[in-house]
């Protein structure tokens, strides 16, 4: 599959009466890393989850507006959510591998989507582990439990699992916040590698991580996007004072 961009158009998300996301419009370019930053409760994770309709699973959440990918509005009632999440993968804050072997963690998705031949699955497992820089560490123990891996390895396995179904976009919600510095550096390196094939949207509380890994940065505050620009610009000379104050640690 080809990497593709996606866009949100006047997207609003409500928790009951409360409008958590207020008519946000953002364009995500293909093969770019976009970082979403902002203080806790500003709506960035809610926004991220709405990009592959993960909010559907939370009671009392209502979504208004459009999200376009491949000429399709994913908020249309007719959209197959399973296929949608194949197209738009997700990596969570805490590594959450299945209680299965390393091999099965990766083979699970492709098998679910109809690939049965062992040779083909073997090839996918190897390719995904290589792309996630895990192959050398795991090739001799593919059939041992994924839970025996370290936290950083587990997170890279989750990333490998997410790319096994050949998504176009990968959403990451604080993918390195539970990891030690070395594992964090590995995940960041991996993000830089993965953007050759995928579009990546990442929520992070770590400002310097946003500065290091992303091409564009969107600053969320109180459910709105205050500023969206090239990351270089945001971190050297932001246009909005609120952005400057936030990234300099004056509030948030």
């Amino acid at each position, binding site marked *: 599959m080809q990497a593709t961009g996606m866009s949100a158009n006047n997207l609003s998300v409500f928790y009951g009466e409360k409008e958590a996301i207020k008519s946000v419009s953002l364009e995500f370019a293909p093969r770019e890393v976009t970082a979403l930053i902002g203080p806790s409760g500003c709506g960035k994770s809610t926004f991220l989850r709405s990009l592959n309709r993960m909010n559907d699973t939370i009671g009392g959440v209502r979504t208004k507006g459009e999200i376009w990918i491949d000429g399709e509005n994913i908020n249309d009632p007719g959209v197959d959510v399973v296929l949608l999440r194949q197209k738009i993968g997700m990596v969570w804050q805490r590594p959450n591998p299945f209680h299965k072997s390393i091999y099965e963690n990766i083979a699970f998705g492709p098998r679910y989507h109809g690939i049965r031949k062992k040779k083909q699955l073997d090839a996918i497992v190897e390719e995904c582990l290589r792309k996630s820089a895990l192959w050398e560490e795991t090739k001799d123990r593919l059939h041992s439990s994924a839970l025996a891996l370290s936290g950083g390895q587990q997170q890279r396995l989750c990333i490998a699992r997410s790319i096994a179904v050949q998504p176009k976009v990968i959403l990451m919600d604080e993918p390195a916040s539970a990891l030690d510095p070395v594992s964090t550096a590995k995940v960041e390196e991996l993000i830089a590698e993965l953007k050759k094939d995928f579009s990546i949207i990442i929520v992070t509380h770590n400002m310097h991580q946003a500065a290091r890994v992303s091409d564009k940065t969107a600053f969320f505050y109180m459910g709105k996007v205050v500023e969206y620009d090239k990351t270089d610009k945001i971190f050297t000379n932001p246009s909005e004072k609120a952005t400057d104050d936030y990234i*300099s640690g*004056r509030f948030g």
Partner: protein
Amino acid sequence: MIRRKELDDGLEQLKGMLIEMGTRVEKVLGDAMRALENLDTLAARRIIADDIKLNQIEENVDLLGARMIATQQPVAKDLRRILVAFKMASDLERMGDLAVDIAKVVVRLDGQTLVKPLVDLPQMAEISQQMIRESIQSYVQENVNLACKMAKDDDQVDALFSQVVRDLYGLMMDNPRTITQAGLISFVGRYIERIADHATNIGESVVYLVTGKRPDLNA
């Protein structure tokens, strides 16, 4: 927020050091010109010996700025404040060196009398001193208009310098025995003209600090 306090304290310290450098440079230029007018070699030697203080402050700016970048990870305007501090400290240190160069001319003129009274040079120095003062003021107030005024003042200094050189050429042609001294005096003109250029650089730094864009005021 603890992180901010450390950063804010550091930025305040940098500002204080730059103000001190500016005050010292303005004074040392005045002292050097007075030493020249009076051909006071004693004062000139004191100026030369005192230059080490400016060098030390510049070094401290570098150390503190580097430490803050390493430990506080400043971004956006905070980062520009530190980058500008490096640049300004280096400009101010150079200005101090140029004032020392004037003092060295005084030492070389030991035992002579001036072949002509100084008229344009003191005026150049006065404008340059005002530029130093105002460039630092524009930095403290983050006043872009005042910073941009440096360009106009610098043109004035440049024009005076051309005048000085023309006059000295005339003097040298009329009386070749003045060549050595007139040559040294024209160097002094050049040193002051360079000081004004560095003050203009400070103006540019202030514009960059405030707007994030680099103007070219020395064009």
